[in-house]
């Protein structure tokens, strides 16, 4: 892979127009609720939640989704694409059912995060940034997730797997296949689950 960070944010291009996109009635209602949090002449503020709704509905952000979000907010498509290409949590191509996001920053790395990524790579046969052939797993390395006391941490979709030992990477994958996100440790602060 070419390694060139110059204008690195703009490398993540929209790969497809996608099918026609419109919020479902339910998502449209949620959008209308969210927009009320901001002054009436500042609807643009809702662009991140509006994009989250689109991503939740379709799995990733397409050019058609951007067009719809822009229309709903009364801003240009360029305004929306500007945001999509800046923030790392919007996907511009399809991802697997489980997106494994391994924290690679210092406290996790000091506790074996690099080995976690290596083990996951080996078990899944994919490199960071790739999705496996069955569309089940996407592997990504991410920067500090803010759970440094439970290193190494892996975020799977929107849930946390804490203290992930490299040697148990295979077990994590098996467990996710059989039990889904219920297999994850979750956040240790939530004592009610224990």
């Amino acid at each position: 892979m070419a390694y060139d960070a110059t204008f690195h944010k703009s490398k993540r291009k929209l790969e497809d127009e996608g099918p026609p996109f419109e919020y479902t009635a339910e998502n449209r209602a949620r959008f209308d609720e969210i927009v009320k949090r901001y002054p009436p002449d500042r609807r643009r503020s809702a662009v991140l939640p509006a994009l989250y709704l689109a991503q939740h509905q379709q799995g990733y952000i397409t050019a058609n989704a951007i067009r719809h979000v822009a229309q709903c907010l009364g801003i240009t498509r360029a305004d929306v694409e500007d945001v999509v290409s800046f923030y790392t949590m919007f996907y511009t191509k399809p991802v697997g059912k489980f997106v494994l996001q391994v924290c690679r920053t210092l406290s996790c790395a000091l506790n074996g995060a690099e080995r976690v990524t290596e083990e996951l790579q080996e078990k899944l046969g994919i490199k960071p940034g790739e999705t496996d052939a069955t569309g089940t797993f996407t592997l990504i390395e991410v920067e500090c997730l803010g759970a440094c006391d439970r290193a190494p941490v892996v975020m799977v979709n929107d849930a946390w797997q804490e203290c992930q030992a490299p040697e148990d990477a295979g077990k994590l994958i098996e467990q996710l296949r059989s039990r889904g996100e219920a297999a994850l440790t979750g956040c240790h602060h939530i004592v009610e689950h224990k």
Partner: protein
Amino acid sequence: MDPILTKYVREPNSFTLDFYLAHEGYDALKMALAKKPDEIIEMVKASGLRGRGGAGFPTGMKWQFVDKKIEPRYIACNADESEPGTFKDHLLMERNPHLLIEGCLIGCYAIGAKTAYIYIRGEFFHVQRVLEQAIAEAYAKGFAGKNILGSGFDCDVYVHRGAGAYEAGEETALLESLEGKRAQPRNKPPFPAVVGLYGKPTAVNNVETLCNVPLVVKNGAEWFTKLGPEKNGGPKLYCVSGQVKRPGVYEASMNITLRELIEGYAGGVRDGRTLKAVIPGGSSVPILMPDQLDTQASFDAIQKAGSLLGSAAIIVLDDTTCMVWLAENLLHFYRHESCGKCTPCREGTDWLHKIVRRIERGEGQMNDLDMLSSISANIAGKTLCAFGDAAVTPIVTTLKHFRHEYEAHIREGKCTLPASWRARNTHVHAGAH
């Protein structure tokens, strides 16, 4: 000091309104609403409460600077906790969300704002659910919304979740992001207190800072100042992580020393290992050496020792850690997170990362070391926000204390301290997005 902010965080249902009300919750709001807004600002000023996000700026002063002639005004709570090594605000929001809501409401009352936005980082999905549930409970019982507790004071509190950008933690970048744009910083001055969210006066305060406000109102400024050394009052949350036995969030007064936090609370380094260095305030601050462990963990003492308390994120490094590897790890972070607005930072972090990476792989040359210093000097102080200064710190500080490790890498043509916990294939993280 017994925990105050985190006293109940391990108890079941500590995040509910019922629990909070059973433990003097919202008493401070009632007391505040009985006072004049200016009195609250004076009280916070007298307490000497300093911002817990990193800079340690006095909160009362910040509130005083908010231009009271312009309407509307806002509070933007910075809950974008993203500084590597920091995980304290997450605990407060997850387990004690009503304390933050109460702090936001009192802050709004003090500066005459009617809206507070809590900007949480994109990865805090669960925190969003907890906070929104808590806010709904607060509205239902009349603690937020219209005519709060019959006082005539109206105030809305909303959660706004980011989408993965370290730079959103910089106060003006946070406001840009809240306005629906890229999280890129603005030129300062004007400061947010004068021209902030939507161009209106705005106080941007960290979560832990706002959580301290109800304590000041309830117990008085004097009580707060007496909890720590001069100008470093109040309870403080410390995040200890890295190569220690018991990493975690620990609450103490700023009288405590780094040694007590690392060796006492966190159990010290693992058996058979020795302490090599400590990063006392998140990845953006200079390293302290083992002989500085008796430094008091206060804003002023750490600064005097040559570093910064920052977000009180103490990252502990033992003797298995290669400092060139560490610099590479952190430069990868800064290179990835640079928002791209200022050229020295956007280009320079990439250059620094490339050079330090080749040294780590044994492909460096001795003149690379001067080049690292020269590039660092051309980034620091030459960018709109403090990111530039932060990004060069891992290079500058490791070169200062561990230049011999860089030289050994270059001389021997390989990493001289390849720990077993590191990747076996050195090219593993080239694929990070």
